[in-house]
């Protein structure tokens, strides 16, 4: 039987990356993700890799871009304010069709915000993580095991679709300790990186990694070609988990740490005779629209529960498309909703229906 190791979420990200051959890391310290870099600083020199502390997140993401352009499996990690600084580089990475992993262990914002867990970078991750028409694959773990397994998956997905992937975690998942099994990550075939700038060795024309297209028609064509790949991602890579949704009158939608709280709240509501269920998006992009739309066909109402002022709720509403009412409950600024709070919300919604 596979051996489980007790680990912090941030350490699990780091170890999982190493286990799938990502041994190059560029970052800049910021709470609550610093353990990723600290763990890698210890481990990577021993496995022939490199953990380099950059002068800023701006530099770190561009080092990541350089390594990715040269065909290296590479990652960077940060927390909310640092991701804002990385956004320029992320846009260039997307525009240059480069694969890499970007980890965001979210904290409260805006501004310097706080250092407690948050999910208020949902818009940033799924909408505004850089200028231009672009998407990131966004994976949202909700356990330390998933911090590891989704890190491994994100690196494969980035390589397969030649685009950046983000692990959108939060400070609670980063700091909590749980047992992890590193033996069972499904391996996928990833294409050879014939486009990489590693020196042409006088054997092929020069490769160019670039995001500049001065001719608008050429730029439009290049963006459209990229969006065809995005369509493939939307078709093939949606992941979500359903918990007691089959007969649910009230379907909660929640991701990450909030989904764990919601699971307990659903159980508590069921004990009180309310038919509640939970749909947990694992991929935030591609978003599980069809699953949510299907849930809306049989539920009486949906409720998005988030650690923000309500961001994913927009996507839930788009998926439900007016079929049923969609409610929101959230805490923000680093406040974590309690099981009791969410259960109470479910109960009062049930009474109102």
């Amino acid at each position: 039987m596979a051996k489980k190791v007790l680990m912090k979420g941030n350490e699990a990200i780091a170890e999982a990356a190493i286990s799938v051959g990502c041994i190059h890391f560029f970052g800049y310290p910021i709470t609550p993700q610093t353990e990723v870099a600290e763990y890698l600083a210890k481990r990577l020199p021993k496995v022939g890799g490199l953990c380099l502390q950059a002068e800023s997140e701006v530099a770190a993401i561009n080092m990541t871009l350089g390594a990715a352009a040269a065909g290296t499996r590479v990652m960077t990690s940060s927390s909310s304010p640092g991701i804002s600084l990385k956004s320029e580089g992320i846009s260039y990475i997307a525009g240059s069709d480069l694969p890499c992993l970007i980890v965001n262990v979210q904290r409260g914002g805006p501004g310097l915000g706080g250092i407690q867990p948050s999910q208020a970078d949902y818009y940033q991750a799924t909408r505004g993580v850089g200028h231009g028409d672009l998407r990131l694959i966004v994976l949202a773990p909700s356990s330390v095991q998933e911090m590891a397994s989704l890190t491994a998956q994100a690196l494969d997905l980035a390589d397969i679709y030649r685009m950046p992937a983000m692990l959108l975690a939060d400070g609670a998942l980063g700091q909590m300790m749980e047992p992890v099994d590193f033996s069972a990550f499904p391996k996928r075939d990833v294409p050879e990186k014939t486009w990489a700038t590693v020196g042409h060795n006088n054997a092929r024309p020069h490769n160019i990694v670039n995001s500049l297209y001065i001719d608008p028609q050429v730029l439009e064509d290049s963006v459209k070609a990229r969006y065809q790949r995005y369509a493939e991602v939307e078709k093939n890579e949606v992941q979500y988990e359903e918990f007691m949704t089959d007969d649910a009158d009230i379907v909660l939608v929640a991701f990450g740490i909030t989904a764990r709280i919601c699971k307990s709240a659903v159980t508590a509501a069921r004990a009180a005779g309310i038919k509640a269920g939970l749909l947990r998006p694992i991929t935030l992009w591609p978003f599980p629209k069809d699953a949510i739309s299907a849930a809306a066909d049989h539920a009486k109402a949906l409720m998005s529960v988030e650690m923000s002022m309500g961001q994913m709720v927009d996507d839930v509403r788009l998926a439900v498309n007016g079929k049923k009412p969609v409610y929101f409950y959230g805490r923000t600024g680093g406040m974590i909703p309690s099981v009791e709070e969410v259960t109470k919300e479910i109960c009062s919604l049930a009474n109102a229906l």
Partner: protein
Amino acid sequence: MKTVFDRPHALCDVPLHYCPGCTHGIVHRLVAEVIDELGVEGKTIGIAPVGCSVFAYNYFNCDMIEAAHGRAPAVATGVKRTHPDNVVFTYQGDGDLAAIGTAETVHVAARGENITIIFINNAIYGMTGGQMAPTTLPGQVTTTSPYGRDRKIQGNPIRVCEMLSTLDGTALAARVSVDTPKAVINAKKMIKKAFQNQLDGKGFSIVEVLSTCPTNWGMSPTDALQWLRDNMIPYYPLGTYKDIDAQEA
């Protein structure tokens, strides 16, 4: 018949977009000649900046990456640290290297990254149409210093080679010009040394080339060269500000 003048292999056979009399073209040729002479085209990765030389990725025959404005040294770091046996160089303007990318420039030197930077100082933002650069001279008129650069308002120019020569990671920091045939020969010598240093694992090398922008200076190419001699060279003296070989000797 013996060929005495030909296009270097490392320079692609495509039309360059530079304005007539712009010295970017000369420096491209020198870099390409050096890559040919060292026989490293097959293992070289060049990083283009944002600035007039943005299309350098189409001009150099080696593998090329186009970086964001000012980030070329960080991109170069990512390439070099994961592929230490490759030759990695950046080609950057003054706005790119000494304004928006100052942090990346200083830290690539401080880390002693084993890369080569070719730095084109033309005291202006060429690409965007003649705005003030960090290297714009006191009194110099640009579109964003229309009354001349006033130190009290727009601050002082940065002398990049002098600044980087104070850092332990810098192996070579030299300022050259390409305003005369003799200067061109010397510039090539320095560029070659900057690449040779990398092959020898000596660490960070930068060659700053004083360059003209006849278009945005509003001068003929020959007047521009004379303006460079009369104004830029006194403020930015030519010479080698750091050379670890000379220090060891």
